[in-house]
């Protein structure tokens, strides 16, 4: 059996996938920059992250629109349909990742000009893990690599563990020095945002497995 018919549908699917990859790259960078702005107390960088989130939002609409067109005009089934369904789900996760990056950038701005609560060690570590998961989830999507997707479940556990640790530690600062309460709470929020981002990466992994195998599974 020769492949190669339905050239147009194949091209449209490739285009959807590459736009989704682009959105994934933007969202990953946004998180990375947002945490960098927090660590370096760089308000300009934080503002840039906030501004660039518009691009992520625009891409979400564009991809969703394109998905609807392909469904309406090409009536895809089987793996083609699952690929489109996966794009639709992934872009929702990525859009939320972008929003969490904005939240972190806003915290950078709010905390500017005050003495730091503590040197940030675990938060950058968490960010590194979460962004790594996000990039790998998108790589798994690009390559259709379900074993890479599957591993995300375990990596998510590590992020959860770190989030717990950060929260506990900040809690002790909070009790020690009432002046630090508001910023300690902000950092706890950052930890929970990073934990959410890792959850989004895990969701993306689950969608990749669905796209490849047609099975809906929970990987953590």
């Amino acid at each position: 059996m020769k492949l190669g018919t339905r050239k147009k549908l194949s091209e449209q699917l490739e285009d959807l996938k590459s736009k989704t990859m682009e959105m994934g790259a933007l969202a990953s960078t946004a998180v990375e920059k947002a945490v960098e702005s927090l660590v370096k107390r760089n308000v300009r960088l934080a503002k840039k992250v906030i501004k660039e989130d518009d691009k992520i939002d625009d891409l979400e609409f564009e991809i969703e629109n394109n998905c609807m067109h392909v469904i309406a005009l090409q009536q895809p089934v089987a793996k083609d349909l699952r690929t489109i369904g996966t794009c639709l789900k992934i872009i929702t996760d990525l859009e939320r990742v972008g929003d969490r990056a904005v939240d972190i950038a806003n915290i950078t701005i709010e905390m500017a000009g005050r003495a730091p609560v503590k040197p940030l060690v675990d938060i950058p570590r968490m960010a590194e893990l979460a962004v790594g998961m996000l990039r790998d989830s998108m790589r798994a999507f690009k390559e259709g690599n379900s074993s890479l997707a599957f591993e995300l479940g375990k990596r998510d556990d590590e992020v959860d563990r770190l989030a717990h640790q950060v929260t506990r530690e900040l809690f002790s600062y909070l009790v020690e020095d009432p002046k630090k309460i508001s910023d300690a709470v902000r950092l706890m929020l950052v930890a929970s945002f990073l934990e959410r981002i890792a959850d989004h990466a895990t969701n993306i992994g689950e969608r990749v497995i669905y796209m490849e195998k047609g099975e809906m599974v929970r990987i953590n």
Partner: protein
Amino acid sequence: MVKSKIKLQTKKLNVWYGNMHVVKDFTLKIPEKKITAVIGPSGCGKSTFLRSLNRMVELVPGARVSGEILLDGENIYDKDVDETEIRLRIGMVFQKPNPFPKSMYENVAYGLKVRGITEEKKLRLLVEESLKKVGLWEEVRDRLNRSALELSGGQQQRLCIARALAVKPEVILMDEPCSSLDPIATAKIEDLLFELKKDYTIVIVTHNLQQAARVSDYTAFMYAGKLIEHGRTEEIFERPKDKITQDYITGRFG
């Protein structure tokens, strides 16, 4: 996989035209009061398979059949089975509407007369009932005695379905019943199928995959005379197991 009661079942069914082997070891269960769609590329043997289900294939000179077809567990190819009786229990609707060149009334009453119903009042009642079932009654009640050939293609096809229904078959076989119809007539037939499956077991051959996906409960994919994959329609269209099925339904068949 199939949980409802099995109405019709083929076991290692083989059909030849002369020495051309067209249907190969076909084993399929057709559940009662459900719609089973048969899909597959042109020439793969769908029509032949369908025609073997009510022994119509025997009418083709040189055709030969082996294996079993069980209707409610009884082999319809047994020697003591009357094939006319089988064709009354298993009705058929063809790709092109094929009304007899007679009045609309006569078309629908025909099978009833074959069944030995002669009383005029009873015939009228049954004709009306069948025409109502296919949604044609209002359109033709005032001109029942005019030729069926006056009707539009979609109306003719519904008349042919009414003709098949009149004799109260248990199973209805449909070979691409919508291929010559416009989207509105097609939608009417599809709505009708949903109505009909309350009472009848339906097997439909279609080249329109969207139609198979819309109307059927189960889908059988046939390729080169063989049954490649059979399952719940949503399974076949969302996650087919076989690579050939996947290539066929996604239209990537060279």
